[in-house]
């Protein structure tokens, strides 16, 4: 366990020190200190209400859109404290992409969904049509969606199946070349086959990104994650390699949870 006194590391990856978060008077995160390694898949596990989604939503500061949230402490993403005054929220979110629990493609065409980030961050006319087309194709190929949708790129994205929608939500992050991808239970709306294909996709993507995934599905954490973080009541209980967490946890609480006796 990292002591809260350990100075904040600014190497790549995600680091937090003394991170506390309150919703009104309820404290949802307590003294969170983490060093999440770059270039691997890290799973956040723990019973409902333990703060895993809240923690995830700190890393792109999207928590802040609700007025009653108060955060203290430090979070370094890609070597920079994201609460520093000179951090641009827009640039942070460009580097840190997010996939949500329920697929939420925008009610515009498939093509425009993939290009949404580009439209927000790149000046109009910076890319020619051909370059944009290439971006769309490569992003959709990366998530194995290209063959399904190449003939209907102009169609509204809401007509896709849930699994396709979730793949699209991953694909639309790629043109911005994010460094970190946050996933908040990305498979909870999908059937078993869909889950399998999304996990395969994770295995492909892990080489290029730092991936953080919140999951309720223990088997999924086991299959898909290199490291796991077990949280309970807003605190980090244990952070270790997946095999270690599942087979030889250090803490009693972790063992209770991963063996299904608690939570």
């Amino acid at each position, binding site marked *: 366990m990292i002591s809260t006194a350990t100075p904040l590391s600014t190497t790549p990856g995600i680091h937090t020190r003394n991170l506390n978060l309150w919703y009104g008077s309820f404290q949802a995160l307590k003294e969170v200190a983490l060093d999440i390694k770059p270039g691997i898949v890290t799973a956040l596990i723990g019973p409902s209400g333990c703060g895993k989604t809240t923690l995830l939503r700190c890393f792109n500061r*999207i928590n802040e859109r609700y007025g009653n949230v108060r955060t203290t402490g430090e979070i370094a993403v890609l070597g920079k404290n994201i609460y520093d005054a000179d951090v641009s929220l*827009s640039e942070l*979110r460009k580097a840190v*992409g997010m996939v949500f629990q329920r697929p*939420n493609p*925008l*009610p515009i065409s498939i093509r425009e969904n993939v290009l*949404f980030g580009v439209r*927000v*961050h790149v000046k109009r006319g910076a890319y020619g049509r051909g370059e944009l087309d290439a971006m769309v194709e490569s992003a959709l190929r990366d998530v194995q969606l290209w063959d399904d949708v190449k003939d209907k790129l102009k169609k509204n994205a809401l007509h896709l199946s849930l699994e396709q929608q979730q793949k699209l939500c991953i694909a639309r992050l790629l043109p911005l070349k994010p460094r970190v991808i946050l996933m908040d239970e990305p498979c909870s709306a999908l059937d078993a086959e869909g889950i399998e294909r999304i996990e395969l996709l994770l295995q492909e993507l892990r080489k290029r990104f730092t991936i953080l995934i919140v999951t309720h599905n223990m088997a999924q954490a086991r299959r898909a994650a290199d490291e796991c973080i077990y949280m309970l009541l807003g605190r980090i209980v244990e952070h270790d390699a997946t095999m270690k967490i599942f087979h030889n946890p250090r803490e009693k609480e972790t063992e209770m949870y991963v063996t299904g006796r608690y939570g």
Partner: protein
Amino acid sequence: MNKSVFAAKIRRFFRALHGLLQIALDFTEPVMELLIRLCGWSAIVFVFAIFLFVFKEAAPVMFGGMNYTEFFTSINWRPTSVVNPQYGILALIVGTLSVTGLAMLLAVPLGLGAAVYISEFTTGKYKEALKVLIELLAPIPSVVWGFIGYMLIGPIIIKLTGAPVGVNLLNGGITLGLMSVPIIVSVAEDALRAVPDSYREAALSFGASRWETVYRVLFPAAKNGLLAAVLLGIGRAIGETMAVLMVTGHAIKIPHSLLDPVRTLTATIAAELGEAVEGDVHYRMLFVIGLVLFAMTFAINLTADFVVKGIRSEKT
């Protein structure tokens, strides 16, 4: 009398009472159903009855040698001329369309802007208070708006532009625009509020600003509702009578500038029906104008209706 006999009597009494209530219910159920059904049908009946009444008054001239070419293409509306009465409503149609168009030019940006502000840039009590206040504007009687246009906007127009009179196309457009804003805001805000929050979150997670979220995501997502809001505003403006009668100047001509007076279809009917002799051509022509208005508002409302239906079927 022993206890069990008494209990049996009580039981019998309540059973009888229950039976009576049941009969009453059996009787009221179909009666209530019939009443409710009548209420539903009455709406249809009234619409058709009104249409039939207007049509009945208009029919004798419509099928009795009315000059349709003159009616739709002439700008001369001289119904009271003894020598050569003329019934051309082109200037009136242009009047109605120009006042409505100008009103929408003001009301649509203002209304949609207010809706976006209330829905996306305010929270909590402030949001509710604003919405309630704007909806309070909707039921202000149109004659009051007429007063405001006549007494307030008119003099301002004279002062700023040097126009000889303050009642003209510009005044009509402004007054009517202000009148249409509340309904546009109300419907548009509902449409924006109905957009799932997950869309906003998706856009924000890409680093979009709030304004980018509005025009890149919320506008496409709520486009049907916003269109319905605009169409309802247009419907309100076209059908408005009292305010435009008071503030447009009421001169029959095709306007060449914002400061020209105009006259609308509605104002013509309101102003002349009292003087027209019941049953003569002038009287009936006013009813034909009524039918033209009927057709215009009907078309707009029907469009709005289909558009709103489009929203619902898209959501399912």
